[in-house]
């Protein structure tokens, strides 16, 4: 029983990371119906920025380092998201869907390979920007305490990841349902042309969606870095990005609560399956996905649209 609860706690921690990435994924999909293949790389970028910013703020004490890293990485990654949208997606908004999809794959490849360049291969001002292909340690931004109750161990990080994820989700729900920006986002998602007729600045709204989505990716990158302590290389966003994509689809792509549900489901099932067999841990999300989609073709919370003749 205690093993079960322990795995559940670990799973919820992993699930909070997936859920936050999946939220960004699903927001972008919801508003422009683009499978943003570069979203896993936003997560990666955010983690690196948080590592550097956190290290720089560490002299000011633990909490300053944590909040400084969170804020800086969310803002910088949000700006990168807006830049990518402006350069690679906006010009293709009224072109066939696959062209934006292909640039998304190109952007993803570019981010991974560019940031993985060794700094001596890069000319002067840029060599401070690349992260290099090697492992870097993620600075300890908080004092980590371990608690135990009834044979179950959990740390400050377990609590923090979960609380941070829930807080950001609540904030997102607030933004979407109770602010003018949120109303504009819902309108644009419903119909771009209709929103334009109502005087909504569609470009600006889509850019804001990218900023928020990428910022959430960065927050989960920070959580990932703090939890696992190491950033492998700029390619490390690929796998969590894929898992988050699956989480978003599992819950019903484009649906905010669906992404959260999918993320937690994915994290928990992966942790349980890994404790049985590592290959199964990798496979389980895909198996769950296939089964769920065969039963509910539009995801857990999605509703199937009927084609009208």
């Amino acid at each position, binding site marked *: 029983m205690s093993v079960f609860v322990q795995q559940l706690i670990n799973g919820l921690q992993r699930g909070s990371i997936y859920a936050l990435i999946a939220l960004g994924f699903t*927001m972008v*999909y*919801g*508003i422009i*119906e683009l*499978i943003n*293949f570069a979203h896993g790389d936003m997560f990666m970028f955010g983690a690196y920025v948080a590592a550097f910013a956190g290290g720089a703020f560490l002299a000011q004490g633990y909490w300053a380092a944590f909040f400084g890293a969170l804020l800086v990485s969310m803002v910088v990654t949000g700006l990168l998201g807006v830049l990518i949208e402006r350069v*690679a997606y906006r*010009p*293709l908004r009224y*072109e*066939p*869907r*696959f*062209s934006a*999809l*292909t*640039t998304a*794959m*190109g*952007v*993803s*490849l*570019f981010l991974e*390979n*560019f940031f993985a*360049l*060794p700094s001596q*291969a890069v000319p002067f001002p840029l060599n401070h920007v690349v992260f290099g292909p090697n492992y870097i340690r993620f600075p300890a931004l908080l004092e980590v305490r371990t608690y135990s109750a009834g044979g179950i161990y959990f740390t400050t990080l377990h609590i923090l990841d979960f609380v941070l994820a829930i807080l950001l989700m609540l904030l997102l729900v607030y933004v*979407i349902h109770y602010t003018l920006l949120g109303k504009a*986002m*819902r309108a644009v*998602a*419903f*119909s*771009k042309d209709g929103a334009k007729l109502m005087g909504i600045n569609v470009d600006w709204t889509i850019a804001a969606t990218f900023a928020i989505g990428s910022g959430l990716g960065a927050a989960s990158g920070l959580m990932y870095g703090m939890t696992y302590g190491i950033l492998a290389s700029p390619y490390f966003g*690929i796998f969590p990005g*894929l898992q988050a*994509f*699956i989480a978003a*689809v599992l819950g019903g*792509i484009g*649906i*905010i609560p669906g992404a959260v549900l999918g993320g937690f489901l994915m994290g928990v099932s992966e942790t349980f399956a890994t404790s049985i*067999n590592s*290959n*199964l841990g*990798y*496979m389980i*999300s*895909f*198996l769950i*996905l*296939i089964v769920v*989609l*065969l039963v509910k*073709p539009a*995801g857990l919370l999605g509703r199937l*649209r009927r084609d009208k*003749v």
Partner: protein
Amino acid sequence: MRRGGTALIGAGALYGVILFSHGDLGVDVHWITDYYLQVLMLAGINIIVTIGLNLINGFTGQFSIGQAGFMAIGAYLTAMLAKLVIPLETLPLAYQLSAFLALLLIAGSAAGAVGYLIGLPSLRLKGDYLAIVTLAFGEVVRSVIRSSDETAATLRSWGLSGLAGPIEGIGGPRGFGGFPKFDSLAVGGWTIPILFTLVFVLTAVTVVVARNIVYSSYGRACLSVRGNEIAAEVVGVDSTRVKVLAFALSGFLAGVGGGLFAFVIRFLHPDNFSFLKSIDYLIFLYAGGIASLSGSIISAGSLTVLPEFLRVVGFEQWRLVVYPLLLIGLMLWWPSGLMGNREFPFLAAPEKGLPEVTDVTDHKSQHVL
């Protein structure tokens, strides 16, 4: 027929030029080294697999991203049969070749059969949901290969050691190598690189067969399903059959491509067939332009060669950065791909008046957030 004849002569000339530049025709030139020849073989394989993907994503309008899974099935099955079940080395050369072709056919058919099964959910799933299921399928295949040791142990515990042997032999996470090699064949003063010839011929055959499929009534049915499935049903197209068959064909081509890949690289690892490899094929397809065989040929060929070309011209480390930038630029300037909806003359429609192929994917808004 005249255009077909010209194309045949063109292909023969290309083959001759490559052989000559590789120094196979008795003249001592080495403009094309063995390394370049390998890149060319990979280009041929990529053309085969991309054409297969085009049959689903381009012509039938179903969004599939599981191509690497089919390739993995083809590659591992061919290699396993050729190394562990029917050891190719022990056969004389003529038998080796025919046995290899037979193995490719078997592996391709197996992948095609799996493709048929993967196609079945497409009857229920639409668009991006189908895409993610095919992606999941590809990753499941990879995980199954990864866990071959555990599978073999389980089979042993059931007393099936005969089956367990070959399955253990594919090496799971350790990778699988040491396949028999096809040497060059000496004919007079000439040498014929067997594997290259095989890849070249199979690529050409794939192009010809795909062209004939595309302009057959079946190909037209695919296009009608892409255009509007309900309308297609109304005029009597069995959309279920059309879609499932497209998946099976595409799986077959990817399986054959995978089998060739195994023998060109001569080492297989489950990570070679991750979803990143499937993404490569999506890039080849969309950069070339959907529903264009010429586009698939140009882009799969040139984008395979491009990173290696960049390496040669001094972009050693930057080539993987330059490549995506070129790709993004390409899509920004030619949003429907290089050859979107156009074909080379020798691949063009056999008669005038067939409907123009246009992208009719609808942009219905999702009601979300």
